[in-house]
């Protein structure tokens, strides 16, 4: 064996440092090298203020994070905040220690969002489009490996992108890394949750996982970062304060020997099945990307939250079909709950199997009275949370922190109050024309609801379950009933209301905020434009796994003192039902109806 001690593996971790030193001390360095070096230094100086050192309560262990908005939202790994309670301490490179509160978690994708408190002008990282990352690109990992940064100056390591769109199997946990970025940048315990930057200092990923086998839990040249595009997809959902879930198509796909990817099993309750996908169909495109292998399919699926709609192209007997399907939840709520904050498990010592997330270093002495010369001057203490922040956390099942959800609900609900129906108790009549030819009129009261389209009338009493009326619309009439409830009583009209996050409207449109409401078996998704805040539509379903009645609202028009969409386009099960042009919206007893609006004949 050659002089082996000089090749200690540890040396690798210092390679970046040594390179810099040798460049500085060299006698004749080519100007391009110096230029590249000063570029690196400039990039590091620029992005360092966004790197967060996260400490667990009591200073036991910790990890890293990155600030992505001026109001203090920080992205990190779920496994960094797991079991740490709702409040933690975070250090920035200004040397100060900030309080932070847990916002939302994604146990499957290993992502969490926390919020730094105390300022509204936090330095924020610029997000890149991680789909443009290429193998061979340079990549900086920054964070707090081995918790070395007692002054909160992040440790910087520099390396190369070794692979993109990697799929990493769940290692005996829910945890699954899909479409991730593989780097040879040295990533070690404590780097978890920290940023991976490209050479321009833009955020391309969140470092979270390393390959380990027999060499111990340190860098062996293969680290994995969650792509920032995945984080982008989940970000609003995480900001909702929820425990968010990943998605499934409801179908199992496999790669065949001829290289095609076909559906081998499909769940009959899935929307994909209702839109026509069958066993044996070949997948061609999913989410705008071609599907070459089953892994690739999982890669695409893994970057989307449950409930998103995605375009899917499949081939059957040479014919291609494009459908848009809503993705189902991957887990039952209870499965995720176990991983959530309400029942924090002891920090799991994951087995020595490959690809476990890096374990955070535990200080030798967990006692707060560490010797002064070892402890950082502002060492995180086990002391409680400042009273000013205590009310920023609200525990509730299925939520990581309900406080953030409540705030978002209030913001969205207030947009509907501007329509001017709040508190109105009288029945509501909405009339107009359907596709210019047919008259259409809704009568919505407390005891009964009815709709008259042309000469045909459908209606029902409200003391029984809501029905699909008119037939094969997904429940157009009960959808309008839900709209009346929402406009006049807000969240009170429903048994459960919460902010879901955001999704692209109808799978391919602009991102919209989504408010969910439940009442009995029925559920509604309310869509709000993210820039104007206005409500742009709603999907009503008579129950889980049923095709929705999709209503999309045109611009608001004035009807007396109130506002209402001038058009409502209706769609159900992939078919257009027509566009209603609204001509009148009235509250109160209709002149031509003597009795209560019972079902019309």
């Amino acid at each position, binding site marked *: *064996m*050659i002089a*082996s*001690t000089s*090749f*200690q*593996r540890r*040396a*690798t971790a210092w*390679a970046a440092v040594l390179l810099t030193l040798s*460049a500085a001390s060299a006698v004749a360095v*080519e100007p*391009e*090298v110096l230029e*590249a070096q000063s570029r690196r230094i400039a990039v590091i100086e620029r992005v360092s203020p966004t790197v967060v050192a996260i400490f667990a309560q009591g200073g036991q262990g910790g990890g890293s994070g990155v600030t992505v908005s001026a109001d203090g939202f920080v992205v990190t790994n779920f496994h960094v905040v797991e079991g740490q309670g709702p409040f933690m301490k975070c250090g920035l490179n200004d040397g100060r220690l900030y309080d932070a509160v847990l916002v939302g978690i994604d146990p499957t994708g290993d992502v969490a969002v926390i919020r730094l408190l105390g300022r509204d002008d936090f330095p924020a990282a610029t997000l890149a489009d991680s789909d*443009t990352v*290429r*193998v*061979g*690109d*340079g990549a900086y990992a920054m964070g707090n490996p081995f918790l070395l940064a007692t002054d909160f100056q992040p440790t910087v390591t520099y*390396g*190369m992108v*070794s*692979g993109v*769109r*990697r*799929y*990493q199997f769940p290692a005996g946990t829910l945890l699954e890394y899909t479409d991730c970025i*593989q780097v*040879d940048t040295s990533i070690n315990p404590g780097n978890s949750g920290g940023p991976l930057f490209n*050479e321009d200092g833009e955020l391309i990923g969140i470092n979270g996982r390393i*390959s380990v*086998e*027999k*060499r111990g839990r340190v*860098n*062996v*040249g*293969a680290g994995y970062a969650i792509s920032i595009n995945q984080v982008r997809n989940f970000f609003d959902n995480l900001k909702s304060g929820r425990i968010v879930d990943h998605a499934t198509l409801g179908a199992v796909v496999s*790669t065949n*020997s001829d*290289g095609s990817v076909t559906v081998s099993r499909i769940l009959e309750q899935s929307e994909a099945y209702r839109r026509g996908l069958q066993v044996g169909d070949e997948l061609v495109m999913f989410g705008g990307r071609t599907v*070459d*292998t089953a*892994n*690739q399919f999982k890669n695409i699926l893994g970057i989307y939250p449950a409930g998103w709609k995605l375009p899917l192209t499949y081939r059957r007997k040479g014919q291609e079909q494009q459908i848009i399907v809503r993705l189902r939840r991957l887990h039952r709520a209870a499965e995720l709950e176990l991983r959530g904050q309400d029942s924090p498990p002891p920090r799991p010592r994951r087995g020595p199997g*490959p*690809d476990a997330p890096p374990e955070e270093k535990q200080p030798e002495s967990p006692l707060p009275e560490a010797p002064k010369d070892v402890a950082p001057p502002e060492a995180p203490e086990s002391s409680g949370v400042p009273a000013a922040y205590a009310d920023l956390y609200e525990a509730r099942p299925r939520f990581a922190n309900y406080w953030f959800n409540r705030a978002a609900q209030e913001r969205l609900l207030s947009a509907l109050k501007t329509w001017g129906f709040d508190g109105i108790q009288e029945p509501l009549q909405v009339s107009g024309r359907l596709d210019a030819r047919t008259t259409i009129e809704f009568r919505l009261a407390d005891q009964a609801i009815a709709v008259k389209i042309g000469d045909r009338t459908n209606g029902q009493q409200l003391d029984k379950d809501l029905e699909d009326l008119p037939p094969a619309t997904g429940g157009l009439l009960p959808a309008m009933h839900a709209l009346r409830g929402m406009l006049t009583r807000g969240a009170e009209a429903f048994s459960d209301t919460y902010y879901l996050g955001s999704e692209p409207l109808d799978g391919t449109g602009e991102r919209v905020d989504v408010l969910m409401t439940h009442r009995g078996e029925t559920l509604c998704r309310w869509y709000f434009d993210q820039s104007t805040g206005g409500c742009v539509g709603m999907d009503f379903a008579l129950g889980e796994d049923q095709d929705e009645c999709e209503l999309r609202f045109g611009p608001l028009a004035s009807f007396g003192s109130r506002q209402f969409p001038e058009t409502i386009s209706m769609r159900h099960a992939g078919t257009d039902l027509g566009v209603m042009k609204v001509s009148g919206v009235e509250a109160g007893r209709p002149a031509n109806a003597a009795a209560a609006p019972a079902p019309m004949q």
Partner: protein
Amino acid sequence: MKRTVRGSMLMLIAAFCTSVPGSAAKSDVIDDVQSRVVKIFGAGGLAGLQAYGTGFLCSADGHIVTAFSHVLDTDTVTVVLSDGRRLYAKVLGTDVDRDVAVLKVEADGLPYFDLSKAVPAGPGTRVLAFSNMFKVAAGNEPVTVQRGVISAKSNLTARRGRFEAPYRGPVYVVDAVTNNPGSAGGVLTTLDGRLIAILGRELKNSQSQTWLNYAVPIGEIAESVASIQSGEFRPRDRFATNLDAAGGCTPLELGIVLVPDVVARTPAYIDDVLPESQAARAGLAAEDLVVFVNSDLVGSIASLEGILRRTSPGDDVQFTVRRGDDLVSVTLRIPEPSAALQ
């Protein structure tokens, strides 16, 4: 538009590459090398042995160079080309001294490395390493690429019984962690994609508990590869497919009685030694386990018989046997066919 700007930036970086050794590697160089690297799947998956490895094409019609390893010890070695094609490979031959094997898949028009164009390198050379480490890449996904610097060129002088190493001879030592599970058989190239060396196995110094990342210069294996490829290499081990049925001798002709060959991989334990035989004179005894014949690993009775069959009368062969905790080597001479059982 954005893409164009990015493209021209890459071109700029590429232009630096020629003059600045510190610049990043071009992505088209990486794509080009990756098209010549293959993933290999075979035996393993138990007891910490990975069932995957790496290799690279050395001819347009499907010759593949890889490390000699347990992964090849199966009837069905699968090779996945960079385009995702999954092909069965035949093990043409192995050279255990060089720790190299040559496989063949049925395909043509493939991109490959011309071994005669491999370049030497010295300490300080910036390099790229390509391998299927940790089986991270599947299907048509490109293998992992890492960057590093050659820190030394030295002789790997490990020897059996002291520091285990599969190979003795000159190696490049790399500062990056290139030798991971599945890396062996991958390639080390210059930043502009010229072949330097084949990545070695994981190697740990059992005394210092340190790991060495090494790669074997192509010059050290080129001759073996060429002779295996041309069919001139004399196959000497159990992985060879064209066993030479004629010639050689049996263990019994040397005076060795082996235990009954009852299972597929019965270890080559000596059951008895014929009195007055060569084996007896050399001191072999019952309960010795034959572990090597010359430098060929003896995994089973069948492999021992195979190795002996391929010897020629008059050859001196070295038997290494395990006796208790010791390794004992003796030399026996392959008898003339008529001189059996003297």
